[in-house]
């Protein structure tokens, strides 16, 4: 009776994976015309829950009602037929297909139900785009489109199915501020016809866009609240069960001499980039996606060829020929995509931790188990990696813990400079704070840190100094006392061609 008014209601959803209770009798209600945010730390069960709604997992226990009707969803197709669409965090596109081909994948318009009609499909997509007020190239392979356009394609794909409910899993994680605003306008437009479940780590965005918030923690539902009736701090406290008073544990450290300096570096789209990093200093690099920060990091680390300019490391001129050379010198990079570049997900924690330092734990050609265990155990303790044992497979750890393994893997050795490229992207507030703590600890021991992040509050909270990059060059430098979100942003998005 009562559930009649909800477009979707879930009752007592429990999901048990081998060894883990991912969801523990979660109740959830979604009203028509609302944007309902789902928040929680990594591993809280948001993804599992949304995947159950989208038919990718079957719940171990519990019931789902649509408009008061009990439904069973065992397959993504079933969910689609019931009107539940999902835009995933990972892009699920075929890279060499164009947008239309991707949007219509498995929904193709055909003649004689066999032969494709690309002309008709393109027309339909163009109409749909016009209706919701977006526009981008339809003929290029999607791999040549930017992340926001790829996401538009994903959204169009879901809209094509005329869903009544759309689930967005971390939709803004690859978008710039501007693109996020465009995306939010789109959401507000869509809201008239569909109910939206919005999963995000970025609480500012949750507060900006959502009508109500459901907080999950450790697989349990903590509360559902109206967004206008709470503030961020209250939500964070629900998420982590402990009060985070000061999110950024930055402490003043004594900053030493210059440890790393780049002079007039040019490489690829970088041109004439000069910067300095002092001992014990956290140097933030701000900028939009594509501004050249990652390229700079990779150039210093020896992954890209330095075309012009000099790198001065510990007082001597050094050519960053290869990562091997730089690692030997004591410069480390924690890459943007830990899953791809930083970790072997199939291997266990111990093996991941010891792989860069195998020489140290080997006698002759044989790995010495005891040594390896000891070294790994040290890293686990030092960086507070939460695991049940060293044999745990890294792929099964939460994002925050994976990131700690990456850091631990590099910092078993004495580093001089550490580059962190979007090291906190996609991990939850609690884990972020622990990464910050590690950063502070490292800075205290005199390590210089290059901290690349698109999360401006975190950059401001943690850095001693911030460089702003824009289109391959440094456009501004700010000392800590002159940090201002607005000014930094201005320099990051200013059209450099215009001046």
């Amino acid at each position, binding site marked *: 009776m009562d559930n009649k008014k909800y477009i979707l209601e879930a009752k007592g959803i429990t999901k048990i994976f081998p060894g883990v209770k991912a969801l523990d009798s979660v109740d959830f209600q979604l009203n028509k015309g609302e944007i309902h945010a789902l928040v929680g730390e990594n591993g809280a069960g948001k993804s599992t829950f949304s995947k159950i709604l989208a038919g990718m997992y079957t719940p171990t226990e519990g019931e789902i009602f649509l408009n008061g009707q009990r439904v069973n969803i065992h*397959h*993504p*197709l079933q969910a*689609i037929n019931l009107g539940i669409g999902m835009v*995933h965090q*990972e*892009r*699920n*596109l*075929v*890279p*060499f*297909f164009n947008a239309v*081909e*991707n949007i219509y*994948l*498995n*929904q*193709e318009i*055909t003649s004689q139900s*066999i*032969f*494709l009609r690309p002309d008709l499909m393109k027309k339909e997509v163009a109409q749909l785009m016009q209706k919701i007020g977006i526009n981008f190239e339809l003929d290029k392979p999607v791999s040549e489109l930017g992340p926001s356009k790829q996401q538009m394609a994903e959204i169009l*794909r879901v809209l094509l199915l005329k869903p009544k409910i759309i689930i967005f899993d971390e939709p803004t994680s690859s978008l710039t501020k501007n693109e996020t605003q465009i995306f939010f306008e789109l959401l507000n437009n869509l809201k008239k016809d569909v109910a939206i479940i919005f999963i995000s780590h970025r609480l500012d965005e949750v507060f900006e866009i959502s009508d109500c918030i459901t907080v999950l923690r450790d697989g349990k539902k903590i509360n559902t609240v109206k967004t206008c009736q709470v503030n961020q701090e209250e939500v964070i406290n629900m998420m982590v069960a402990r009060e985070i008073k000061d999110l950024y544990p930055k402490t003043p450290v004594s900053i030493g001499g210059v440890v790393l300096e780049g002079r007039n570096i040019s490489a690829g789209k970088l041109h004439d980039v000069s910067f300095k990093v002092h001992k014990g200093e956290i140097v933030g690099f701000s900028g939009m996606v594509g501004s050249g920060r990652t390229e700079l990091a990779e150039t210093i680390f020896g992954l890209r060829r330095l075309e012009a300019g000099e790198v001065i490391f510990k007082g001597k001129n050094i050519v960053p020929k290869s990562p091997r050379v730089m690692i030997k010198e004591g410069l480390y990079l924690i890459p943007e995509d830990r899953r791809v570049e930083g970790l072997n997900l199939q291997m266990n924690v111990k093996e991941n931790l010891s792989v860069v330092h195998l020489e140290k734990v080997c006698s002759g050609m044989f790995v010495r188990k005891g040594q390896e265990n000891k070294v790994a155990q040290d890293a686990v303790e030092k960086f507070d990696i939460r695991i049940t044992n060293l044999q745990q497979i890294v792929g099964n750890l939460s994002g925050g813990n994976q990131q700690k393994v990456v850091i631990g893997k590099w910092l078993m050795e004495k580093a001089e400079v550490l580059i962190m490229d979007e090291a906190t992207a996609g991990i939850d507030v609690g884990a972020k704070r622990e990464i910050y703590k590690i950063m502070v600890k490292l800075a205290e021991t005199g390590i210089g840190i290059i901290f690349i992040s698109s999360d401006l509050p975190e950059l401001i909270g943690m850095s001693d100094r911030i460089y702003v990059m824009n289109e391959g060059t440094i456009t501004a430098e700010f000392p800590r006392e002159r940090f201002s979100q607005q000014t930094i942003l201005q320099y990051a998005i200013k059209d450099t061609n215009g001046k």
Partner: protein
Amino acid sequence: MPKQTRFKMNNFFSKYGVLISLFLLIIFFSIKAPRFMSIKNIISLLRQISILCLLSTGLTFCMILNEFDLSIGEVAGLSGVLVTTLLLAGYNLFISILIVLLIGITFGLINGLIVTKLKIDSFIVTLAMSTITLGCNYFITRGKPIYGEFPPGFIALGRGDLFSIPYPVIIALVVLFLGIIFTKKTKYGRYMYAIGGNIIAAQHSGITTDRYRILGLTLSGLCASMGGVVLASRLGSGQPTAGSGFMMNCFATVFLGTAIFGSKIPNLLGTFIGVVIIGVLSNGLTMIAVPYYYEYIIEGLVLIGAVALTKIQKK
């Protein structure tokens, strides 16, 4: 500025390098052996490549799906042996070919089922299958060729012609043409490309990926056995080892095709051009009397070169 022109040149070569090298090969052989460009030789060249073309067409279906089929050569060999055995046992031509094609389909189907249901890499499954097939082959032949009186219809299949176009060429081109329509114009082809490009995306779109992966390997088995039947007919006998040499050349053709026009993905038109290149090489080298062992070396180098070309383009 000079850097940019160099980049454009690189781009040009990686896009059209395959076509240019085909062109250069033809010019080279025409100069070295004037007979090379004669109508007679061109027709015989086409006849030679028709079997490779059939097998490569099948392999392209697999490679579009990002699957391998290493068993095609041996399935072709077994098919040739089987069809001749059946004919000598007195079966009707039509029935014999039908049975053999069904057996080819069955081998492909088994490959597909093992790959999808037991989730074993197609590389391993088809590698094992090729040995199994060779074993079956030797079980039937005891390693000896199968000779005898075959019905004239069977011999015509490999040696006859229509308006002076050999039957094998017609068969290969028809299969190729149907394949192109299937992969480029139908939704099923679209699904196969989608699976090869991003299997997760395909699954999330509700495509029954297993079904199409099985289909790809099955088509490959079918094409291989068609090739085997035509081969036996051309040879006029069932040779146990006749199919063994094809597998590597097939891979070379598909990779050449992937590199052509910078398309970066396997496609049947490209495969066909790859087939022509291999054919021109093999025919031309024979014409200018290069010892056969060099041919193997060159074929190996072509395969590596073709794959290297696709890698360069992906960068």
